[in-house]
């Protein structure tokens, strides 16, 4: 990418951030089409693939076909790639080697470190299992950027809760100091797809983003769900299912959870949790899942 274009984009995006959380980057992103598709390697650890499914649901800034065909080159994704077996593992290693220092590594799910990492095997390389832990430690330092997609990868999440029998760690935890750039945490259970896709494009186009103390892009995680909630200050709702009123008094996690749900909502803006009369369970919080979820 030419320096002049990069500088131009930096200026454009900075201006957008100053104006509004939900600025439209469509015009900026079209520049990508002129570039060689940037390589992405997406690996899954202890998780549910929900962040992959959520990403397939993206509509803004682009739908997933546009992302995969014209914006990025998805070198490895267990869920959608054609190759299986040794061919898949070879593609993983060759892509990381060929694009060393250039690719973005997306980590979905937490990383089990118990039992020498053997609670999660990505596949076999020459008859030897490659654990998620080994893959993260090998490929993250080779990546230009590392993105933790979802709460499990960002903070441990559901995978690390309770007794955490498998000793699951977050990406940043296991990679402390081992990456070229800070791990970018994009929590949410699942990750909000616009945040995921736009964050990848932001990194590609403009490099490191402003991160908060939890390594989250400030522009998406800057305010609490409660602060932007349309039910804030509308009187108290006394039980889940109430069609009006604030759920704070019955344990809503909106006050302590930072995410863009009130403005972006979910599934192409169709709905969100509080919109269907259930309190925020704090799925993007470092503490998720609290025991109990509400309270």
């Amino acid at each position, binding site marked *: 990418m030419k320096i002049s274009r990069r500088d131009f984009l930096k200026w454009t995006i900075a201006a957008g951030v100053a104006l509004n959380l939900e600025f439209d980057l469509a015009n900026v992103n079209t520049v990508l089409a002129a570039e060689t598709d940037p390589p992405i390697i997406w690996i899954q650890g202890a998780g549910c*693939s929900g962040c992959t499914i959520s990403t397939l649901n993206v509509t803004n800034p682009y739908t997933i*076909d546009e992302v995969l065909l014209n914006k990025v080159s998805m070198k490895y994704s*267990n*869920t959608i790639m054609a190759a299986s077996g040794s061919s898949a593992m070879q593609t993983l290693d060759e892509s990381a080697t060929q694009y060393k220092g250039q690719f973005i590594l997306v980590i979905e799910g937490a990383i089990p470190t118990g*039992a020498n990492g053997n609670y999660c095997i990505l*596949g076999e390389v020459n008859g030897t299992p490659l654990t998620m832990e080994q893959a993260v430690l090998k490929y993250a330092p080779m990546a230009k950027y590392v993105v933790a997609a979802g709460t499990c990868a960002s903070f441990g999440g559901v995978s690390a809760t309770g007794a955490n029998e498998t000793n699951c760690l977050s990406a940043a935890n296991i990679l402390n100091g081992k990456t070229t750039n800070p791990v970018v945490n994009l929590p949410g259970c699942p990750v909000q797809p616009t945040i995921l896709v736009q964050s990848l494009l932001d990194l590609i186009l403009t490099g490191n983003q402003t991160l908060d103390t939890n390594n989250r892009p400030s522009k998406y995680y800057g305010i609490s769900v409660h602060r932007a909630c349309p039910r804030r200050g509308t009187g108290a709702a006394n039980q889940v299912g109430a069609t009006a009123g604030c759920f704070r008094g019955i344990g809503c996690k909106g006050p302590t959870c930072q995410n863009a749900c009130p403005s972006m909502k979910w599934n192409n803006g169709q*709905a969100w949790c509080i919109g*269907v009369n259930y309190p925020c369970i704090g799925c993007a919080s470092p503490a998720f899942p609290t025991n109990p979820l509400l309270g």
Partner: protein
Amino acid sequence: MSTIVLDPITRLEGHLKVSVTLDSNNIVTEAQATGNLYRGFENMLVGRVPNDAAFLTQRICGLCPVSHAIASSKATEEAAGFTPTLQALLLRNLIQGANFISNSILHFYQLALLDYVQGPQMHPWTPGYSQDLRFSTADSESLMASYVTALAIRRQAQEMGAIFGGKLPHASNIVPGGVTASPSSTDITNFKNYLNTITTFVKNTYRADVNKLATTYSDYYKIGKGYGNLISYGVFDTDTAGTKLFQAGIVTNGVKGSFAANNIKEYVGHSWYSSPSGVNPASETTTPNFEKSGAYTWLKAPRYNNEAYEAGSIARTWLSGDYTNGVSVMDRHLARYTEISKIATNMQTWLSQVTPQTSGYTNIGTITTGSGIGLTEASRGALGHWLSVSDSKISNYQIITPTCWNASPTDDAGNVGPIEKALIGTHVEDTTQPVELLRIVHSFDPCTGCSVHVMSPDGIEMSKFVVQPL
């Protein structure tokens, strides 16, 4: 004699390994399926309030979260002696139906089709096997055009489900007591518009494409049969008396029979557990033992009346009479289409029965003690949650997932699991590109996130052992 190890099997949820042994004619003589992820899910539920389980168990699987939320809610409702209102059941059906449609379209186009068609010559569609690709260039291009359209339709199915469910994956509001949505007339119209678009795709494009596949690969009606025995817990309540769109039941050697949950037992003879084998999940315990001789997987082997049964669309449509042509790779694809078509039609009916501005939720209070079973179906098959509550907290939680039935190992009597059985006897034309094996495994739509959580190493210190994955 040679062996093939496929690790990972991609285009499914989670981490699955399959290894087979071939004879000198390249016929599979032995097969083993191994899940490669262990999460210890059930233990993290113990000590929590029952309502939390409807949210946490969704996080087992991002593909079929709605079915987990419903199974969990049903288990708690049974413990409370509560039957949800018709409004609640209708909303659950519509959210779950949307999830089924999204899943089955994703499965056919994004997960399975690339075993038969080459995609664009770019990542992630290349590299891939080039073995046994029979479609003409025109047909391949047409199918890949459908692949792209299907990406949008499956997304729209998720958007449709979110209208009542809050968000997908991981619905916001399916809880013991019902569904907290109170749909407006606008919501209902919005849902209907989505449903019309999706139904048109299903009944035209999906139908044409699955038939094209079946015609071109008709030999796959004879490949990957497995046992042919089928099981379903039933799904989609159509009234408050327990009537379902797809009834529970079993099919044994082609004969339908009734289903009773107490006939389920789980065996661990070839699994890494030393806990008692052959126990019903309501009273089951789980103690891992990774050094156990003869064990090769984290999965237990659920059996019904001591026999291996296959779960999935084909079980449901066989029992409902909608599809009874046979059991094979291609029959599974056709059954999945047949089922989705039927679900889409019935969703129109359920939608018309939804009462605007009426909540689907009833506050059932706190359950202090009791037990319950929540049985439903995920798109890939029978799903059951077994719950015990004491002192208002979960004291025991057991889950048997569809992929547990399908990808289970050999049981104590020597019966291999359904996927293993389906692989045995298959001829592999090119051992460097064993596409036949992928086609068989993918036809079951396995989901190892589902299958691998069921082991709960109670009280074991993890530092004491090292896992040998195989």
